[in-house]
């Protein structure tokens, strides 16, 4: 009883841990072939998903609030994850701009700003739409204002892809680093159990 009370107290005392940081999918989702590039000529294709965990985030560079917040917190979450999983199981974080018209010329620099190993790419509209649809994500370019500036609506969650190339989970804001790392570690245990069955 004492133990239970202590547990309940711990839950009350750490509201961040009680927040939902991720959702595991009921069944893995196969992803189609895709290809993205950046201005350095680097590529990100479905082949890059093999044998490593990958987190894919969609966004755009003219995004003052949500995208920097998400990438900044993912950086902290990935550092935390590094304390919980083997180095080769630390996810690779990939940012895909859904706004190639404005971003293609310097997209590679964006994600690196948050972590030297984060990568960013963009691509043809068709490729963007393919991966958006396959990961059950969303974006929409809004109508430009009188200055030509336009906003972009996009998913606030990010996709977690397993080393077999299938979509396994979604991470959700606020991306609390400790809780997100905990979620990713649990996801990897579930995945390994499934493989060994």
């Amino acid at each position, binding site marked *: 009883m004492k133990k239970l009370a202590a547990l309940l107290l711990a839950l009350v005392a750490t509201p961040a841990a009680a927040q939902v940081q991720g959702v595991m999918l009921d069944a893995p989702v196969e992803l189609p072939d895709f290809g993205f590039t950046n201005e350095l000529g680097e590529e990100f294709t479905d082949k890059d998903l093999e044998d490593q965990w990958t987190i894919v985030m969609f966004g755009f*560079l003219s995004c003052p*609030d949500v995208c920097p917040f998400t990438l900044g917190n993912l950086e902290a979450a990935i550092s935390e994850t590094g304390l919980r999983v083997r180095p080769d199981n630390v996810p690779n974080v990939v940012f895909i701009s859904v706004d190639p018209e404005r971003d293609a010329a310097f997209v590679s620099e*964006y994600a690196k700003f948050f972590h030297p190993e984060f990568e960013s790419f963009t691509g043809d509209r068709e490729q963007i739409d393919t991966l958006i649809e396959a990961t059950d994500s*969303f974006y929409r370019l809004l109508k430009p204002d009188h200055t030509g500036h336009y906003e972009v*609506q996009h998913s606030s969650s990010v996709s977690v892809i397993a080393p077999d190339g299938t979509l396994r989970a979604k991470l959700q804001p606020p991306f609390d680093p400790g809780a997100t790392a905990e979620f990713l570690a649990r996801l990897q245990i579930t995945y390994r159990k499934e493989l060994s069955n």
Partner: protein
Amino acid sequence: MRMALALLLVPATGLVADITVDKPIIPLAPPGAMVHAAYMTISNTDDVVKQLVGVSAEGYAMAHMHKTEVKGDVATMLAVDVLEIAPGQSVVFESGGLHLMLMHPEAPARVGDTVALTLEFSDGSTDAVSAKVVKMIHGGHGSQGDHGS
């Protein structure tokens, strides 16, 4: 001499609002970002409602008030034309909520720079704010600017 003194006492921005601004910061923008945000807490110390109707930023082509709204899984930025601040009320501009959107910098801001912002109110008063460019530290409880993330 008396005239010079009188001039010194007249603020350059005209009417000064009964407003206090705490912790105005600008997170360092990623390379290539033509749009980034400023955050702060604005408090109305007057006994009447204040309406924040605009903002300008030195060294930027445009600045707007914006609000991030996450509905379901979709994040949208909404322009805020008028922000009412009740007497004694503090409004927090922070990640995931209200922010000042600074657009098209003349030059990329660097850590330690300050950006002169002017808050414009419906009664014609203004408030000059000096916002510091800081490198955000995520995941903990703030940045160098002590801004909760």
